């Protein structure tokens, strides 16, 4: 059995102390240890983006991140973003533009879009597409997702 470690970090603005096996990834910690199921498992290899969270303000695949490496860092998950009024416009835009179908990719997509909008407050369509290249959606064909993000970008102007 893998050795266990005590770590402490900020999760959605709340201090967390957890004990995790050294080989556990952050996705498993969030879902199985902390019970936050908004972050999704899609592939476990960083290829689909369903598990995207933000760590110290940048987006990452939580499935690729060792849970022990969360120690001392600040994590934001979709649950944290859902509590954040700043992201209301983004979520509303996803809803109104029809960017959600089965919804399984949506939490990761929203997390990545939020990061993208931080870095590029008024992104053009090409920037948006490149920004969400690591997020696979099987339902929508991406167009409405790009539109939804662009619309938030427009109101940032």
């Amino acid at each position: 059995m893998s050795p266990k470690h005590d770590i402490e970090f900020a999760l959605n603005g709340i201090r967390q102390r957890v004990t995790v096996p050294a080989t556990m990834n952050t996705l498993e910690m969030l879902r199985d240890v902390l019970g936050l199921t908004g972050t999704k498992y899609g592939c476990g290899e960083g290829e689909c983006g369903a598990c995207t969270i933000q760590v110290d303000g940048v987006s990452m695949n939580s499935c690729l991140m060792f849970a022990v490496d969360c120690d001392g860092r600040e994590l934001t998950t979709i649950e944290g973003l859902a509590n954040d009024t700043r992201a209301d416009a983004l979520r509303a835009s996803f809803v109104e533009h029809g960017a959600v179908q089965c919804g399984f990719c949506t939490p990761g997509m929203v997390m990545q879009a939020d990061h993208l909008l931080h870095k590029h407050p008024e992104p053009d369509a090409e920037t948006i597409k490149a920004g969400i290249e690591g997020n696979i959606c099987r339902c929508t064909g991406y167009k409405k997702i790009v539109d939804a993000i662009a619309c938030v970008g427009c109101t940032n102007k």
Partner: protein
Amino acid sequence: MNVVAKKPRTIPESSLIGTRIPKMDAPEKASGRTRYIHDINLSGQLYGKILRSARVHARIVAIDTSAAKALPGVHVVLTAADVPDQRPIGVARDHFPLKGDRVRSQRDEIAAVAAESEEIAAAALKLIKVVYEDLPVIADPEDAIKPGAPLLHPAPAGAQPAGATVAHRGKADNIAMRFDYAHGDVVQGEAESDVVIEDTFKLHYVTHCCMGVSGMIAEFDASGSLLMYSNTQVPFLHKREFAEYLNMDPARVRIIQPPIGGGFGSKLDIYPFEVICLFLARAARRPVKLVFSREEEFLASPTRQPVLLTLRSGCKKDGTLTFRQVHTLHDNGAYTSWGATTPFVMMQTFSSLYRVPHCDYHTVAVYTNNPYAGSFRGYGNLQATFAIEQQMDEMAAAIGMDPLAFRLKNAQHTGEVTGQGMEFKSCGFTDCLNTAAQRSDFSRKFADNAAERNQPGHLKRGIGMASMLHVGGGAKIYPSDGCGTILKMDDFANVTLITGASEIGQGSETVLSQLVCEELGLPISALTVVNNDTAITPWDVGVHASRTTFIAGNSAIGAAKKAKTKILAVAAQKFGCTAEELDLRGGCVIKAADGEVVTELSKLIRNLHFSDKAELVMTTFYYEPPSVHQGKDYKGDVSAAYAWATQVVEVEVDTDTGIVRMLKVTGAHDVGRVLNRLGIEGQVEGGIVMGQGYALTENLMIENGVMKNPNFRDYKLITAPEIPEMDVSFIESMDGEGPQGAKGIGEAPAICIAAATANAIANATGVRLYDLPFTPERVYRALHGQTPKLYWKPWVPAA
């Protein structure tokens, strides 16, 4: 009671039909609050995992599970020997959930474990020892039908039970299913032809790649009743089947369907993992949760049907089609799922997309040691359309006719009854062709691209078109193709719509709510939909065949109409007028003539409830479409309506690399009528991009029965930067039977893309490709003359 107010309030007429209504479940999904099956945990649950075969084709000599059983935290280890009562599953009942004596594909289930954690379950699998004796691998369906080929399902030794299935009695050949259809006389058709073309087409393996992997939770209660959390698309059919597999009363099986992370047809059949999960829960006497990894999802989910197809078609110099003769060899894989039955759809396209006086169709689906094919959005129609629409271009070129004009000449029209007995009561095909061609400037670009083909430069532009016909009003496959609805109104005029139709992400909840609101003059916010529990919802045949909007929609409208009749009758009596003089609008009873408010609907309902009559507004409705079952000759009007579409694809081909970029898709879809514009755009755009993946990038590589790329790194789904510009038009043919005139279109948008892309590449480069997908290397080889012309000489074993 005098209802005349001082200033009578009037409510102007308005309609929700055709507006853009966000999905009702989208806010929860966008907040990460939606709980999919992966997110549900029952207290005391165990985790199930399956040991799959390490070989493609082998006899199982021995299985030793003792070390796994001894591992702390392991509660149950099962092999076939531990479940002597297991029954054969699958469309042809040709395999057992746990394989006992023989494995026939890489995915085959040999043993299963239920343990206290996934980690322990995985560790236990590694401790199971299996001794195999290799058998010859049959990876090529052409080999499988050769006389004397080794049998995939030989008769097992010993006496077989009466009425034995394939799994019990075996099969004397490797033919899983065959289909033979004809109308007219192809010999006569060929004699009348000025041009005859024959080509072979090869269609590859792709798979659904639902973002949410497969999973199931099973729990037996104290009295032995079964509760399943399952993402099946056909809960009522499966409820009965699961009961059969467990030899229990179907009344004691309840299925709850949590929100689904993508369906696309993948959840139409019962797969071994589901039955195994039940066995584990039964043996453990605890809830068991079994969820796939992504790799397992690739290995053990169904695929789209791979097909080898030779098509021979003819036409006259004036462009009239004369005949089509089709032979297909379907690689069934090791077992039979719905993929084997795709000929039901394929033959419709061959016989009826265009007017063809003579048509002859044959399919042989053969067993091999490959993964087995299931149902997948489009159900054979992508394959059939790929062949037909390429030959339409080839024939047009052969007689010197514009591809659009050639298609228009042979297109179906409203009122026609085809050789297969399909009746087109609404048909916007000609409008689809003209709209897509005009909006894309097809004919000019087609000519310009061909003229510029030999100019210097490594980038070549091409444009191509393809059209499709697909069922749009259900499909009468089962004894009933119906759907039930229960509608109840509360004292505040809110509606709970209880429907048998499942939501798989396509937006059925929203469109059904919209149809009910339209009847009852209510805002969408007044609606709650319940659609996920067989203990509550009325029967429905399931989500498939693009049927939900049409069938469940008509059912919901039926229930709403009954409620409306009841409400208006009460109102008429109360206000001393006839029901015909009243209507419902804006949450009120109004005068139909001028929209003047008579009373608030909620008030009327409360009056009814708390009166001497003490009545609630609750209605039920069951809708059965007026379609018919096909005869043994596959003829009959199997759907209540048919959807049409034309899609024009524009590409840029890099001749230095073979990379094909899809620049633009112009689609025109006969959808009957647009109900939720936002929803239908989403369905079409998603379908186009799924078609793009089928055409260009997705390829499940199977070598000698072994999957080479069970991951998203090398199984390439389309990502955002690759999507084409999309210009989608809707042709509203107002189907007489459809809900508010609408037809089903769930599958339609994926169907034409590969065919149109092939035509576009031919337009760009002068080179025609007959096998999918159009990956860079395949295109590059073809452009450099490295690809010999594909030819499969149809060989049909005697029936």
